[in-house]
């Protein structure tokens, strides 16, 4: 059996004196999809930044624990070494290089690839996955729509030929139809053997895509299990899927109508 795509043990991280991750343990099986759910400030983005080595850019640091990907220890490595180890992070908010063309953005994505000679091959795959990127290849990325920018951000990450893709809120700010499109490509990418660690506020979407899921609360894993288990658990249904459950939990939800599922979560 091949080693898991990602194994995190007791990971702690902090922004200065403020702890942000308090002992996270999780695993993404080789070729699997895992999701991390949680509200704002639960530490989801911090977790991905810690994994990809860019926490120092945001004023934070990993303070303890272990991170291994496919048998290689990632903790303390520079971001370029982590990319070279096959772990690539698509940041929240897309962050395409707005002043560069779509083609140049993809080229930037291949800068850290283990084997740059395969860049053309990777680009063909990305174009097949997102034909719009081939059509818009010479346009500045800043002129793409939000959904197209998200496709570009994912495509750019794929240029490095990752074994594990870290996706931070790919559905953020996108229309339901576009979100469905992105969800479809995540499944497609995974089918070609790339493992995915997905962070989502859209819990319904995340639980549909993932095999395993972890619920983060104030920097620690509060719940974990298979996606089906979590989707069926009362607590996840109540807090993240917006489904009302009977019983004692109802009083802290406020007046009745507030618990109706939001349209976005049905996406």
């Amino acid at each position: 059996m091949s080693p898991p795509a990602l194994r995190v043990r007791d990971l702690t991280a902090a922004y200065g004196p403020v702890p942000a991750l308090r002992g996270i343990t999780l695993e993404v099986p080789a070729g699997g999809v895992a999701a991390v759910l949680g509200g704002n400030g639960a530490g989801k983005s911090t977790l991905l930044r810690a994994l990809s080595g860019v926490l120092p850019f945001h004023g934070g640091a990993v303070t303890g624990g272990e991170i291994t990907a496919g048998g290689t220890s990632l903790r303390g490595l520079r971001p370029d070494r982590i990319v070279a180890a096959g772990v690539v992070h698509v940041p929240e908010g897309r962050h395409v290089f707005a002043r560069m063309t779509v083609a140049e953005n993809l080229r930037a994505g291949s800068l850290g690839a283990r084997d740059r000679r395969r860049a053309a091959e990777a680009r063909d795959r990305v174009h097949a996955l997102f034909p719009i990127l081939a059509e818009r290849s010479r346009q500045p990325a800043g002129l793409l729509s939000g959904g197209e920018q998200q496709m570009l951000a994912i495509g750019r990450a794929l240029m490095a030929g990752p074994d594990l893709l870290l996706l931070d809120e790919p559905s953020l700010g996108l229309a339901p139809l576009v979100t469905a499109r992105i969800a479809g490509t995540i499944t497609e990418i995974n089918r070609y053997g790339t493992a995915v660690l997905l962070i989502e506020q859209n819990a319904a979407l995340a639980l549909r895509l993932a095999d395993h899921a972890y619920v983060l609360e104030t920097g620690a894993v509060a719940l974990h299990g298979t996606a089906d288990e979590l989707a069926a658990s009362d607590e996840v249904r109540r807090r993240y899927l917006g489904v009302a459950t009977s019983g004692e939990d109802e009083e802290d939800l406020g007046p009745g109508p507030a618990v109706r599922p939001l349209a976005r979560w049905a996406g």
Partner: protein
Amino acid sequence: MTALAELLVNGLASGAVYALVALGFVIVHRSTEVINFAHPSLLLAGGYLVAVLHDDIGFWPALGAGVAGAAALGALVEFVVLRRLRSGSHGTLSIVTIGVDIVLTVEIARRIGAEVLPLGDPWGDRVVQVGGVTIAQARIAALGVAVAAITVFLLAFKYTSWGVAMRAAAEDRATAALMGVRLGRVSAGAWAVAGALAALAALFLCVFPTPGLDRATSFAALKALPAAVIGGVDSTTGALAGGLLIGVTEALAVGYQDEAALLRGGFADIAPYLLMIVVLLIRPTGLFGTRELARA
């Protein structure tokens, strides 16, 4: 009319040299957001290497050594000084470069002493006549070499992996790091290229009609700072436009100083700075600058 044509050609030639220096300011600023006040000292170092080496190893090898030496010195400054201070603000780092400039300039000026060192260039004071217009060969060489160097630089910036990495890092450092771009390498590379361009510029600041390299040569380099600012410090196109504007303005101010009382008494020396102030009053981001608009 021929006088004007001569002035324009000479102005463009020195403008192209200023553009070389201004490009150095721009690429360091783009990759590290630091205004590199140590740039004149890199220029002086490159020129000094050419001056001391050309007698022994010949002019062209000496020029190569000067370019390589200034590039190495630039990368060294980045590695030894700036990288250790990464946590400092861009303002602090810019001020640190003033310190670096003073240290390097004082040391090189001490070595130069009161002398004026010739650079041993092959052009000397020979001139060519084109349709009644007299132009020094050295000026033509300056224009040709500067245009060639700038073209190579811009093509590299646009098409090579190095250029893509530079532009990605300039636009969004954290995201560039996520792509596996090595930011330290990118900024050391920017300093090295800036140093190399400065050394080339040093050569043409010291050839005819200038007698040679002296301790004041670095002041000439400072004129390229307004050139970079006029163009907008984050724009390579701006550096070229700014350099040419400064060169032509200066040549015209010198050329017509006998006709207009205003231009007398060293007006040419302050013209670049006046031009900078006027441009900034009209366009606070410079002619081609975008940063402020993008961040708004």
